[in-house]
């Protein structure tokens, strides 16, 4: 039962290992002459002003939040969609109700104006 998962683990491993090998080859072949100027942070050709970890705006959190909520919604709906053929009409409508409740959340966010990219 776990066989396909072993394959997936191997493929993910290979997907990391092969680029890793390529990068190591690059490291072996390439010149290595580091100096402070070369390694300094790039910013339109001038030196970085201030701290590099700038303050980001809070809207990013809102997008992540909506994504989390809809991700969970999808996770609940996937088993529902798989069992779809065996469901009666009222069960399908329960799933639809589930979707509509969350759609209300999206429209609330829209009305509140947090979806604007300011």
């Amino acid at each position: 039962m776990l066989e396909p998962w072993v394959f997936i683990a191997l493929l993910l491993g290979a997907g990391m290992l092969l680029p890793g090998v390529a990068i190591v080859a690059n490291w072996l072949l390439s010149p290595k002459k580091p100096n402070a100027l070369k390694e300094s942070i790039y910013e339109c050709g001038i030196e970085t002003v201030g701290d590099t970890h700038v303050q980001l705006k809070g809207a990013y959190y809102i997008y992540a939040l909506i994504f989390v909520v809809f991700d969970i919604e999808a996770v609940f709906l996937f088993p529902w969609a798989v069992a779809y053929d065996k469901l009666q009409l009222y069960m399908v409508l329960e799933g639809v109700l589930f979707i509509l409740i969350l759609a209300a959340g999206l429209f609330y966010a829209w009305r509140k104006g947090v979806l604007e990219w300011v």
Partner: protein
Amino acid sequence: MLSLLQIAFLVAAFLTIVSAIMVVTTPSMVHAALWLILTLAGVAVLFLLLNAGFLAVVQIAVYIDAIAIMIIIVVMLTKGATRQRIRQVNKTWWGGAIAALILFAGLIALFTQTPALAVNAPALAMSQEALLEDLGMALVDVNRYIIPFEVASVLLLAALIGSIMVARPLVRGKDEEVEA
């Protein structure tokens, strides 16, 4: 002699526990979040070993892709407060350590007196596909978990609305955040 499954379990459990310890001890929040991702991936592997492939994928889709990304975003948003290498544990951290240790010791004492825990897994009666279908049926069946299912959607709606209310960007002008 350990079987292959047992070795897989031990490796995954060991890595998970180590990264969980790193989560609660690393001073840097960014690194703690990265260790958290490793812990969550380890838990996903354990779900796989429990033949719950669906939950394993859900664990990755919900925790690593959504919650962990959100945590990292919030870590970067509140960078200003965590940047300075200040003390990361509070003054009564030893109290927490003792409480955790006592709880762990108590749980182990409890486990040793519970013979039911020594059982091995019975064979699954249904295929993975049938399990998933049954789960989908159970979630919308009036006699089973329809209430938790719909309440979950209301809970998510409440969380969405509440979070937006609390974290809504401030009115422009008062807003001191840098345009990014």
